[in-house]
Structure formats: structure tokens, C-alpha cells
């Protein structure tokens, strides 16, 4: 047997295991051989299409008869291609039944039934589509960004080359230097390939000069990633490309500047005045290291390089097969001491305790987004549950109305299984239609998201509805279909006799009404909870957008400098370094003001203590608030644009003469001097025994942990002060107010620091705008996404309630007819129905309010400027829902009150 035949035969044998054991004992061997013979025949005589059809027909045949065998035992066989003359036997003759063709029949009947109830069908399908669509859309995002590997071959072997300097307080973020590259290359056996680059902004001259972001990279970058150019080529391994001046451009750049002309390869670009030949164009999806980079140009780093260089480079490496990240880090860690001799950087190594840190590339890229996305997925599943609940309720209510029909069927011999099939058919149809529509909606939503999503969301361009996502959606559809089938089938209806005697309506009227009432209550309560959540999120979002952080973030460059205690053994020396650095930085052209602080706004660190106020006795019963302490230089407030509320800012005189002039934020005033003027008052940080400070000014509050928290109280103390010499910090964050775009001064900044001490690295270079955006974007994005989810939930809730109530009212048509016939006026009847259903709705509202009250505290971390029990949101949501429920009750009530009562009674 050939290999292909062997595979098919094995598949067939696998399918055979579906049969019950008794069958297999008799026939398994025979069937295998028969199949093998037939397979050989088919291969010999038929073409590819014929062979495929043969296999499909055989496998499907086995499937059908195996199911028949298991289900029916004595069921007839219908495996022929010709139609059986028995197809006309009525469904209720259960003697010769093939469950599979009965299912097909049930599906057809189910479709007919559904089209006869367009209201129910439409409501169910749309509801389900919204639920499945929302869940699928968010899952697309989660799958594409968090779960799917990066779009590079064997991307799990790619690592980000980073270093930590625990001795100077830097846990990661140092990056690479040219010296490290020269040293690692060829030495580290754990790396199959590595590349390093440095980002820059360059001017492209020509017809339309523009400023673009570029990378100067070692030539192996593309090879390490494993990517090729779409047109032209990428850099070769040698140095020819460097020597002759080449550049690879991004797809975006190619479209923008050359209109997608394939002849762009070979043209010459003027790159800050240097002509470079374009040798390749990257494919459309390629964005490394981020979507803003448009050009890559090669540089070589001499392996014999003798200078260590600054940490302004970044790098990646591809691990050799079978090597773990930990092993790579260990190997490199052992090589670090060798840097001492090679570059003479012994002091830097001792001070910083340089250590390699190699996170996987995906980890580095996805870092922040992961948590948020999982939360989003959880919330959207909640929406799906509501959708399913809606549809299940609709199905239940409808099933109630068909109890007579069901009872008749059962009397005529339909078994439990048949009833299940009856509902399964409808469930499958609704689920399929809802699923198809939902996937279409999801596709649309994903496209909108990719176009408008926050740029800081990593891998956004890669988000798409992939086969894995469709598989997920299919799973949802299957699950919901089963649920919708089981829900009505598992209900125990009243006996047939009771139903036949009194018709659908009167049987167990009391219990029936209670059941329906419970449905409405559930709908209303669920919808209300979600509505309230929406309200809270919307208000949070509005607050977020309007929030004044208390400082300015435009044109501000920040970075961190860490000194080591070994090199700077006392505060005077470290203070002197920082002072000289500040002077040097302020002197850079383009820098207006230079300031320094132990911790920038949104730096996520507290470092606080309580304050002891002079002249205030210790009150053991009250616990004073903890205040975050920052040490700043005198120009810090001006550099960051922190607004002064009252008093004055400290000046150079204060700081140089060490008068202990302190500035406090407004929260501190609220906490410690709520009824008095704090200016001129003195305090000590801690419980005493340290230096005294005098309040000279009050500034606006600035956030520490992001915009979601209440503003923390912050006290700004002078950078150098204190008789015990323990106050001067070793690590400071610098903030520069620039008159030019902040990135432009970065090289000058590095030069200033380097000229003071070549062994001191700077890290965490970012503009204040980037910091604020990073702190904000996740919140904003989450808020928007949750808002959308809750909005969908609102729509679902509204549709669901309307559907259930109007159907329930429709069921009372007969009662309405009787009342009208007995002389009631239409208005009276309508009011009565409103009152009855209204009672149920009111109960639902109460339950919903209670539930929301309990649950919204879980949302606290997502809210901003709004309490979880915000009365405006609660009242608004309840009011809206009450109006909707009222409308949903009133419209059908009025409609049925208008019908001619005689006709209503007759149409029994």
C-alpha cells in the first residue's frame, strides 16, 4: 500500500471505532479489508476528484451508519444514492428511522416554524449576533496580540537584549552598547545570530523634505528576524552594503514617497545630506521595532572595538536551537567580568553590577497590554452570557405557548429524544444565523479597531479575524445551540390530558405566570446592572478626558541618571554631580529649563511617610495620612510646569543656603492643615528626630499611579539638605523643558552626562507626553472598550425585555378579548396590563439595583472620579430602563386591546 493509501486506510479504521463494540466484533476486520480493496480500485480507475469523493462518501457513510447503530439499533439503512421509496413515511412512524435524515427533516421544519414567527426569530438572531460578535471581536484582539506568536519564523527563539544595573537602581532598560555588541558577537554560543541598532531622527531632503524615524543597525537585523524584503533585498552579511551607503525602506514610506513604484529600488535618497541607495522595500505588515520607523540603514561595529560606548543601543538575538533564555543569560553573565579588561570599565561594572536580562521578544512587545486585554475578554463574555440568557428566555416563553403541540406529539409516540431533536433543530438554526451575523459584525468591528485603536497598543496592525478566531466563534455557536435546545426540552410540561382539556392558556395559569414573571425580573435586573456599569464607565471616561494633571507634558524630555555609592561616597559629591549636570543641561541649546526630582509624576512609586507638624501634639487617636516625599531642585516646578496655588516656589538661594524650604501639594493641606494657612508652618517627615522644613508654597496635585487614583499628597523637599548627610539621592529623574522637539536634544544630553563621568549611563529616556500617554492609554482604551461592551449589553437588555414582555402580553390576548367583550374599555384593559407587568418590572429594577450595588465595587479600579455607588448613574440607568419597560408593555397591550374581541375569542 502506498503512503497515501495507508493514511486513508488508517483514517477509515479510526472512523470504524465509532461503531458499538458488538458491531465491530462482527465486521471491523471485514470492513477494513473491503475498504482497502475498494480504495485500491478507486486509485487505479478514478481521477483525483473521484478519489476524493470516494473517500468522503465512505467516511460519511460510516459516520451516518455508526450514529444510526448507536442510536437506533433497529433503524433502517439509508446509505444509498438512490432515494428510498420509504421517504414518504410520516415522521411519527418510528419503526424505520434514520436519525440523520430525520434531523435534516427537523431542520427544514424548524426553519419553517421560525420564519412563521419573524419577531421571535429576528430578536433571537440579532441578540445572539451581538453577543457572539462582541466576544469574537475582542477574542480576535486578544488572540492576535497576546496569544499568537510574533510574525517572524520561530519567533519564540527571539530575545530582547537588555541589561540591568541593580547597583544603580535600574531593574532593566539599560539596553545595549556598541562595545557589548562587539564583545558578545562571536563569543556567546547561545546566540545563533544577533543584531543591534540605535534609533535616530533624520532629515530626508529632496522635493519634499521630511523628518523620519530611522534605525542605524548592524546588517544582521533582518536575518536575525528571519524576514525578507518585498521588493529588492535586505542587507547582506558582509560590509559591502555599509561601505556603499544603502538603506531599506518601509512599506509605508514607499507608498507615501514613491507611490508604490517598484522602480524605487535603486533610487537614491538623501539622508541628512548623505546619498544612500534604496536596496529594498519591506512588506506591508513589517514594523520593527515599532510602526514609526521608516528607514533602516546598516552600520558596522568593528569586532575589535576598544571603547565601550553608551547605552543608547538596543538589540535582539536569536537563540541557538534548544538553548533557553536562562542559559543564554547565564552564559552572558559569566562573560561580563571579561569586559573589565577589554574595555577598562571596571568601575562601571562594580558600580552598576551590570547583569544581562533577556526577555523574549514577544514579552517585551506585549508587556503592558496583556492584563487589560484579558479583563476585556472577561467582560465581553458577560455580554455574551446576557445575550444567551435573552435568547433562552425567548425560547422558553415561546415553548410555553406551544405546550399543546408538544403534548400531542408525545402522545403520538415521540420520545424524549424526538422532543430534543425538535428543539435542537431550532436551536441550531438560530445559533448558526446568529453566529454568521456575529462573525460578520466582528470582522467589521476589528477593521474599525485597527484603524482607530491607540498606537501604543502593540501589534495592533496584526489584529485580524483568523481561522483560530473563527474556530472559537464556531465553538460559541455550538455551545449556544446546545443550550437553546436543552433549555425547553428539559422543562416538564403538564400532562397531555390537562393541556387538551383547557387549551394552552389556563393550564397551571398561576404557575405559568410566576415563571414568566421570573423571566422578566431576570432580564430587567441583568440589563440594569450592565446599564449602571455603562453609566459609571461613561462618567469616568468624561472625567479622564477633562482631567488636569497639574503639570504640562508637551516639550518635556525626561530621563534617569543613577550614581553608585562607591563612586560617590558622600552626599556632597553626588550633590555636586547633579548640580553640575543641571548646569550643563540647562546650557544645551534648545533647553529652556532643567529640573530634577527623585520621582516624576506617574512614576508609580510612593516613598512616603507621615508628617509631624510643629506645635501640634501627638494625637494617638488619629492616624495622619502618609505623604509621598520627593526631593527636587529649585527649577523642577518651572521645568515641569507644575502650577503654584499659593505662596512661592523655592529659589536657588533657598536651596543653596539650605533653609529647608519645602513645597507641598494641595492634598497635604487638606490632610494636615484643613482649617489653617500652611504657609510658614514647620514640619518634620516621620515622627521626629529629623530635620525641620518650612512650608513656603502650595502647588497643584499631580498623580503618582495613574489617573485612576485619588490625588496623593506630595511634599517636595530640597535636593540637598540635612545635617546628617543622608538626604542626597543617588538616582534622579531629570526633566528638561525644551523649545525644540524633545528628542532632538538627546544626543547633547548624553554628551553632557558623559563629559561629567563617562561611566554613568542614562536610562528611561522618554518625553513627558509619552509617559502620560502610556499611563492614560490603557485606561482610556479599556474605558472605551468596556463602554462599547456595556452599550451592546444595553441594546441586548432593551431588545430582550421588549421581546419577553411583548410576547407575554401577547399571550394574554384571550383574557383581553374576554374583558373587552364583557364591556371593559380599551383604556382600562391597557392600564390593568400595565399595572400587572409593571409590578414585575419594578421588582426587576429593585433586584437589579441591589445587584449593581454589590457588584460595582469590583469595578473600582477602573473608575476615575466616580464612586462605584454614584447616584446619578444608578438613578439614570433605572429611569431609562423603567421607561423602556413601560413602552415595551404599553405598545403590545394597546395593540391587543384594539383587536375585535369576537375575533380574539374565536381564534382559539
Amino acid at each position, binding site marked *: 500500500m502506498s503512503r497515501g493509501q495507508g493514511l486513508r486506510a488508517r483514517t477509515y479504521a479510526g472512523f470504524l471505532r465509532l461503531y458499538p463494540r458488538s*458491531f465491530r466484533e*462482527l*465486521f471491523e*476486520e*471485514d*470492513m477494513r*479489508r*473491503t*475498504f482497502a*480493496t*475498494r480504495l485500491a480500485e478507486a486509485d487505479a480507475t478514478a481521477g483525483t476528484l473521484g478519489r476524493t469523493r470516494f473517500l468522503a*462518501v*465512505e467516511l*460519511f*457513510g*460510516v*459516520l*451516518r*451508519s*455508526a450514529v*444510526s*447503530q448507536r442510536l437506533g*439499533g*433497529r433503524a*433502517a*439503512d*439509508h*446509505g*444509498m*444514492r*438512490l432515494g*428510498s*421509496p*420509504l421517504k414518504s413515511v410520516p415522521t411519527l412512524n418510528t419503526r*424505520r428511522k434514520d436519525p440523520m435524515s430525520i434531523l435534516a427533516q427537523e431542520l427544514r421544519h424548524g426553519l419553517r416554524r421560525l420564519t412563521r414567527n419573524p419577531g421571535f426569530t429576528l430578536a433571537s438572531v440579532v441578540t445572539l449576533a451581538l453577543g457572539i460578535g462582541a466576544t469574537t471581536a475582542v477574542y480576535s484582539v486578544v488572540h492576535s496580540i497576546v496569544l499568537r506568536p510574533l510574525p517572524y519564523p520561530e519567533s519564540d527563539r527571539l530575545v530582547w537584549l537588555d541589561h540591568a544595573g541593580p547597583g544603580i537602581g535600574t531593574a532593566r532598560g539599560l539596553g545595549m552598547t556598541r562595545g557589548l555588541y562587539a564583545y558578545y558577537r562571536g563569543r556567546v554560543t547561545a546566540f545563533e545570530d544577533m543584531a543591534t541598532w540605535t534609533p535616530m531622527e533624520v532629515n530626508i531632503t529632496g522635493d519634499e523634505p521630511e523628518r523620519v524615524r530611522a534605525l542605524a543597525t548592524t546588517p544582521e537585523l533582518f536575518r536575525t528576524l528571519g524576514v525578507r524584503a518585498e521588493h529588492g533585498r535586505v542587507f547582506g552579511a558582509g560590509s559591502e552594503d555599509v561601505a556603499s551607503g544603502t538603506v531599506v525602506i518601509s512599506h509605508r514610506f514607499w507608498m507615501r514617497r514613491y507611490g508604490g513604484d517598484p522602480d524605487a529600488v535603486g533610487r537614491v535618497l538623501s539622508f541628512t545630506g548623505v546619498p544612500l541607495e534604496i536596496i529594498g522595500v519591506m512588506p506591508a505588515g513589517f514594523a520593527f521595532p515599532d510602526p514609526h520607523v521608516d528607514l533602516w540603514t546598516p552600520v558596522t561595529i568593528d569586532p575589535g572595538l576598544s571603547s565601550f560606548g553608551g547605552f543608547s543601543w538596543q538589540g535582539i538575538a536569536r537563540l541557538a536551537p534548544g538553548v533557553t533564555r536562562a542559559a543564554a543569560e547565564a552564559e552572558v553573565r559569566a562573560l561580563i567580568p571579561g569586559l573589565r579588561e577589554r574595555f577598562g570599565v571596571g568601575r562601571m561594572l562594580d558600580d552598576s553590577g551590570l547583569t544581562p536580562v533577556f526577555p523574549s521578544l514577544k514579552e517585551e512587545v506585549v508587556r503592558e497590554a496583556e492584563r487589560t486585554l484579558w479583563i476585556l475578554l472577561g467582560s465581553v463574555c458577560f455580554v455574551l452570557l446576557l445575550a444567551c440568557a435573552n435568547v433562552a428566555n425567548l425560547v422558553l416563553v415561546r415553548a410555553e405557548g406551544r405546550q399543546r403541540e408538544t403534548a400531542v406529539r408525545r402522545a403520538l409516540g415521540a420520545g424524549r429524544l424526538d422532543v430534543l431533536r425538535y428543539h435542537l433543530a431550532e436551536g441550531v438554526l438560530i445559533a448558526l444565523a446568529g453566529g454568521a451575523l456575529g462573525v460578520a459584525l466582528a470582522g467589521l468591528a476589528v477593521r474599525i479597531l485597527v484603524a482607530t485603536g491607540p498606537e501604543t497598543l502593540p501589534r495592533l496592525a496584526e489584529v485580524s479575524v483568523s481561522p483560530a478566531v473563527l474556530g472559537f466563534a464556531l465553538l460559541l455557536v455550538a455551545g449556544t445551540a446546545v443550550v437553546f435546545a436543552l433549555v425547553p426540552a428539559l422543562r416538564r410540561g403538564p400532562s397531555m390530558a390537562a393541556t387538551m382539556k383547557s387549551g394552552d392558556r389556563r393550564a397551571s395559569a398561576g404557575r405559568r405566570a410566576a415563571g414568566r414573571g421570573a423571566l422578566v425580573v431576570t432580564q430587567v435586573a441583568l440589563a440594569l446592572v450592565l446599564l449602571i456599569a455603562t453609566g459609571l464607565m461613561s462618567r469616568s471616561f468624561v472625567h479622564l478626558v477633562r482631567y488636569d494633571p497639574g503639570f504640562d507634558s508637551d516639550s518635556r524630555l525626561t530621563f534617569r541618571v543613577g550614581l553608585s555609592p562607591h563612586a560617590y561616597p558622600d552626599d556632597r559629591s553626588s550633590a555636586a554631580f547633579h548640580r553640575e549636570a543641571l548646569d550643563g543641561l540647562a546650557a544645551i541649546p534648545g533647553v529652556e529649563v532643567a529640573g530634577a526630582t527623585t520621582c516624576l509624576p506617574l512614576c508609580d512609586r510612593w516613598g512616603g511617610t507621615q508628617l509631624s507638624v510643629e506645635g501640634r501634639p501627638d494625637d494617638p487617636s488619629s492616624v495622619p495620612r502618609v505623604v509621598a516625599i520627593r526631593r527636587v531642585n529649585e527649577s523642577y516646578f518651572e521645568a515641569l510646569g507644575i502650577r503654584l496655588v499659593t505662596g512661592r516656589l523655592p529659589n536657588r538661594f533657598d536651596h543653596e543656603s539650605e533653609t529647608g524650604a519645602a513645597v507641598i501639594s494641595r492634598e497635604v493641606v487638606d490632610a494636615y492643615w484643613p482649617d489653617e494657612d500652611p504657609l510658614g508652618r514647620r514640619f518634620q517627615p516621620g515622627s521626629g528626630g529629623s530635620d525641620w522644613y518650612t512650608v513656603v508654597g502650595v502647588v497643584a496635585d499631580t498623580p503618582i499611579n495613574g489617573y485612576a487614583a485619588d490625588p496623593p499628597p506630595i511634599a517636595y523637599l530640597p535636593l540637598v539638605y540635612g545635617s546628617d548627610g543622608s538626604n542626597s539621592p543617588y538616582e534622579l529623574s531629570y526633566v528638561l523643558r525644551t523649545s525644540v522637539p524633545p528628542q532632538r536634544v538627546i544626543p547633547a544630553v548624553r554628551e553632557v552626562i558623559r563629559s561629567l563621568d563617562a561611566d554613568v549611563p542614562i536610562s528611561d529616556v522618554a518625553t513627558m507626553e509619552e509617559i502620560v500617554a502610556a499611563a492614560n492609554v490603557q485606561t482610556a482604551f479599556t474605558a472605551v472598550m468596556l463602554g462599547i461592551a456595556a452599550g451592546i449589553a444595553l441594546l441586548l437588555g432593551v431588545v430582550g425585555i421588549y421581546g419577553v414582555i411583548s410576547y407575554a402580553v401577547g399571550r394574554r390576548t384571550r383574557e383581553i378579548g374576554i374583558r373587552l367583550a364583557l364591556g371593559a374599555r380599551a383604556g382600562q384593559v391597557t392600564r390593568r396590563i400595565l399595572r400587572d407587568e409593571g409590578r414585575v418590572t419594578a421588582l426587576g429594577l429593585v433586584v437589579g439595583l441591589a445587584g449593581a450595588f454589590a457588584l460595582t465595587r469590583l469595578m473600582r479600579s477602573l473608575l476615575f472620579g466616580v464612586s462605584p455607588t454614584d447616584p446619578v448613574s444608578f438613578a439614570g440607568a433605572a429611569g431609562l430602563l423603567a421607561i423602556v419597560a413601560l413602552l415595551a408593555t404599553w405598545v403590545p397591550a394597546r395593540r391587543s386591546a384594539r383587536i375585535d374581541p369576537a375575533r380574539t375569542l374565536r381564534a382559539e
Partner: protein
Amino acid sequence: MPRRPKAERFVPLSNLSFHLLLALGGGPGHGYGLGKEIERRTDGRLTPTTGSLYQALKRLADDGLIEPAPEAAAESSDERRQYFRLTALGREVARLEATRLHELVRLAAECRLYPSLG
């Protein structure tokens, strides 16, 4: 007589079942051979899949219309194949079915829907 009502219970037969009984009328056979025979006799119009074929055989066996024929297996070159032969009940049922079909065809001729059988 208890056997008679039993045979009538199985009529009408499905097309495949009837063909199987007919094919076994000429002597014992096994699954593959029977399928091939049916295919040949109907000029390829009836080509059951292995699944439906063996399912039909199982049902006929369960109903007692056919039974395993180990002696035929022993005689043939392939001992492991599962051979079947008609039982007396099976013969009876086949005869009844043929009679029924004959009656139907005669009726069709009377209604001028089919040429007379003569």
C-alpha cells in the same frame, strides 16, 4: 403458525436489504463480494458505501433473515472473512417481498402506467 406472521412483519424491505437477500439467494457470500454483486446487477445504479452495507447486513442478521456461514469461510481462500447465508425466514421474506413488488407492478399495468407483464 407462529412463523408466518413473523415473516410478514419484515415487509416491505428497503431496497438494499432486498438486494442483499437476492444476492445471497445464489449461495453464501461476504460483505465485499455482495456489494460488488449488487453493483454489477444494478449496472452501478446501486453502490452502497461500506458503512451502509455492513449496517444492513447487521440488521438482517439481528432480524434473523441471514446467519453467519462459517463453513463457507473455511472453504474459501480467505478464512477470516465473515460469510453469511440466508435462513429459512430470510427466504420466506424475500419471497414475500418479490410477491408484493409483483403485485404492485401488475397494478401499475392495470392503471396503464407500465406495460403489461403478459
